[in-house]
């Protein structure tokens, strides 16, 4: 299954736009040469590190010649622009192309090698290039390098003037273009093949990914950007020096990559900012600078292998957690009247081992029904049931941890199906209900199955909607659901506005005056609840649920919408049920994933009939 929205619809779009805008105005705020010079270095290093990541982080292929390819681009610029007098603007991309050709030469011997041997061959290759460069002193200037390379000019204006403003914007332009290209490559067929080969080589090969061709393409693509960066660097510092082959430069770029976070596109870019500015700040300390960089690499690898990008993610998670938690606390008082009007009953909050839980109980000495809502929803999703069924039944609904106006939970312990079932037990205990009928929707359906299978509460009847009973997890996911972007979104931590609209629209109902509250509620849901729901699938005893269904001791109904876009109806029909109401899953005609919300009248009628049978009325 593949889900990749265009960049402008993803969560990274607005932050990236803001960062770009800041970089565009930067030279107007900092008009001095030095700060612009630093930023130009940042851009160049970011390109080299990010393009290296394509093979190292994403591909797991440690090409230690990458930095030598940067030097190749630099020398190409020097030879073409100075010795042969080619237009500097052409010499820079030519540097990229020559670096690509070198990368292809490097790629050939390592196409079928692995692990340490790739490192050794690429180191040997970069040494080879280095030795050739310093031995050909009449072409390359030998150990002293090439000096006085021609600078960039546009319409007679030298980019060196005006405090390097021309170089700044050229560097920014190359940086943006290379980042955009890398972003596209990573999400393209090639990028997926590269990642697949890293994660499971033999599986990827069995699926038709050619290891040799993918490696070659990845190395060539990453070499091109390194070469262009090298060419531009040559035009900027106007020197091509063999120092670029040295272990010092290699260590610097490597530290940018690792400190930023390997295997991510944005990590090396963040790393370039931090490491370049840091290493310039301590540039005067001579050997101490190298010692500090070395120590940073080691400390990061030992104590924080994810790098800065992981830190950024943690920060974001913290901010998002604080936001959702504050939103829940605020709404607990603020929108209470409206919520009580929807369910027509008082909202109460209890403290459970899994955090504060808000619930509504219509009360009375009638057959009790517990409603459990789905992923990223809230108890008010059952407003039409509360309106129509309250005279005949005692209706109870609650917000799952991290949802609605319940508090956020501890992700490791609170955001999984058994924990949700424990919460349901606690709510029932508080209401003093002994044997309820339980209705679960989607994720809530699994909670209902789990609650019934645990048998701590004796469930009198069980109904689910939008839920596929699972035997083998996660294998049955593929069979039980139509693989669509919805499944990815269901476990996605952060939603962009487009994604939020798409998810809430397909899970409940498209945005309208009546469904607006469900859409609003989506933004409150703790994103970690979605992630942990999937990562903690293993803690649920799925076969126990199936055994319960096969035994058929509990009256059971499946009330799916006939047009539920996510379910594989034939899989659900094909399962073996010990006893099922009407003998087969019952479809609510025209209902979607939330039939009780889209087609309340039809659903309520069916549910009432099931209730009557289950409770023997």
């Amino acid at each position, binding site marked *: 299954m593949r889900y990749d929205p265009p960049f402008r619809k993803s969560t990274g779009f607005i932050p990236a736009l803001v960062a770009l805008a800041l970089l565009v105005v930067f030279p107007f705020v900092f008009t001095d040469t030095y700060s612009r010079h630093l930023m130009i270095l940042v851009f160049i290093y970011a390109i080299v590190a990010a393009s290296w990541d394509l093979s190292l982080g994403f591909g*797991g292929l*440690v090409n230690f010649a990458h930095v030598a390819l940067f030097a190749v681009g630099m020398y190409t610029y020097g030879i073409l622009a100075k010795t042969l007098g080619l237009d500097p603007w052409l010499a820079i991309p030519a540097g990229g192309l020559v670096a690509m050709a070198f990368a292809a030469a490097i790629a050939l*011997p390592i196409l079928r*090698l*692995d*692990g*340490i*041997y790739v*490192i*050794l*061959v690429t*180191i*040997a*290759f970069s*040494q*080879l290039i280095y*030795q*050739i460069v*310093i*031995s050909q002193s009449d072409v390359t200037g030998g150990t002293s390098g090439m000096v006085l390379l021609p600078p960039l000019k546009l319409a007679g204006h030298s980019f060196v003037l005006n405090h390097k403003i021309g170089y700044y914007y050229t560097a920014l332009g190359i940086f943006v273009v290379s980042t955009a290209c890398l972003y596209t490559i990573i999400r393209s067929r090639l990028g997926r093949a590269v990642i697949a080969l890293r994660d499971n080589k033999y599986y990827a090969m069995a699926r038709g990914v050619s290891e040799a061709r993918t490696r070659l393409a990845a190395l060539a693509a990453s070499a091109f950007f390194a070469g262009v960066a090298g060419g531009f660097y040559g035009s900027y510092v106007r020197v091509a020096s063999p120092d670029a082959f040295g*272990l*010092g430069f*290699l*260590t610097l770029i*490597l*530290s940018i990559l*690792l400190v930023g976070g390997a295997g991510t596109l944005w990590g090396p870019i963040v790393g370039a900012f931090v490491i370049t500015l840091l290493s310039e700040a301590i540039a005067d300390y*001579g*050997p*101490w600078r*190298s*010692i500090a*960089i*070395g*120590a940073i*690499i*080691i400390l990061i*690898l*030992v104590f924080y292998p994810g790098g800065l990008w992981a830190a950024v993610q943690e920060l974001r998670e913290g901010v998002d957690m604080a936001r959702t938690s504050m939103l829940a606390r605020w709404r607990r008082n603020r929108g209470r009247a409206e919520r009580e009007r929807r369910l027509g009953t008082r909202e109460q909050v209890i403290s459970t081992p899994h955090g504060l839980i808000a619930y509504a109980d219509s009360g009375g000495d009638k057959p009790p029904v517990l409603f459990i809502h789905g992923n990223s929803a809230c108890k008010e999703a059952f407003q039409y049931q509360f309106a129509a069924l309250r005279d005949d039944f005692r209706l109870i609904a609650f917000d799952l941890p991290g949802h609605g106006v319940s508090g956020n939970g501890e992700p490791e312990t609170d955001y999984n199906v058994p924990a949700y079932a424990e919460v349901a037990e606690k709510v029932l205990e508080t209401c003093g209900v002994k044997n309820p009928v339980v209705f679960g929707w989607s994720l809530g359906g699994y909670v209902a199955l789990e609650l019934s299978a645990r048998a701590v509460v004796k469930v009198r009847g069980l109904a689910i909607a939008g839920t596929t009973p699972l035997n083998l997890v996660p294998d049955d996911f593929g069979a039980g659901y139509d693989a669509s972007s919805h499944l990815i979104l269901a476990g996605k931590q952060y939603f962009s506005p487009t994604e939020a609209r798409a998810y809430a629209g397909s899970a409940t109902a498209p945005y309208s005056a009546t469904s607006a509250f469900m859409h609003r509620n989506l933004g409150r849901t703790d994103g970690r609840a979605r992630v942990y729901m999937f990562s903690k699938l293993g803690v649920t005893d799925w076969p126990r649920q199936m055994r319960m269904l096969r035994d058929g001791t509990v009256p059971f109904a499946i009330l799916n919408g006939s047009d539920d876009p996510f379910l594989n109806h034939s899989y659900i029909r094909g399962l073996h049920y010990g006893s099922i109401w009407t003998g087969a899953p019952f479809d609510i005609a025209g209902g979607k994933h939330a039939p009780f919300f889209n087609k309340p009248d039809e659903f309520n009628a069916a549910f009432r009939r099931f209730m009557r049978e289950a409770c023997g009325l």
Partner: protein
Amino acid sequence: MTFETFLFVLAGGLVLGALYALMATGLAVVWTTLGIFNFAHGAFITFGAYLAWQVSQTEAGNAGYFAGAAAAVAGLFITGVIFHLALVRPFERKPNVVLLSVITTLAGATILENAIDLVWGPRSKQLAPMVPGDATFFGVTTSKNQILMIVLVLIILAAVGAFLRYSATGRAMRAVAQNREAAELMGLDVPKLYAGAFGLSAAIAGLAGLFVGSIHFMTPSMGTDPLMKALLVVIFGGVARFTSPIYAAFVVGLVEAFSTYYVGLYWTPAVLFGLMIVVLIVKPEGLFGKYERSV
């Protein structure tokens, strides 16, 4: 080429070969035992040379050559153990330990090199030859220092070989290298043996530094070239047996000597690295014997 020139070049090749053998053996000990590549090996060689200089030279310590060698061996053994504990141990059980240890040892080498720069300064130094004067064989004149060096290297290698082959600790090290889990089940103290192997490798590097310092000038960054040569030798010969890198070292030393004579000084490294790439493509396990790797 006259016979005298041939002998002269041959002698030069043998000297280089002996040095490379010592460097590569240290590297191979770590590679075979821990399965990783130690990029700080060059910095170890540098550190050994500087320690020996500090202890043995007139203007510094003047405690004599033996004391210098002892200081290099002891100091480097400790350094090796520290490097192992700080740079390799934390990643031992990770799936990408090979890559991680390359990066950390590279960083460790940077730290060590720059620390040497801080302590002893960037100015080049030299160890006095162990024995002064020249000797002449078959009309070829060579320094007695170099002859003594070849002899000493062969003795050291024989001693290390005997240690690995016959002593209980050496056998335990080889057992751990062959099958870590089985060795652990037999009650061998694997962490201690790993640290010991790393220390032994570093101590050999320290001795190599002593010899390098007596025939070349010493600078804080002098380790890069020996590291590359050791890497080349180890790849060239493979690490199937203790002796594989030793044979390869002499092959590389001779190739280098003759290539310098015929092709020229500047192209020699290119010839060597070109040869190494060919060997890696054709016979990645090395020229001398087969070594089963688990990737």
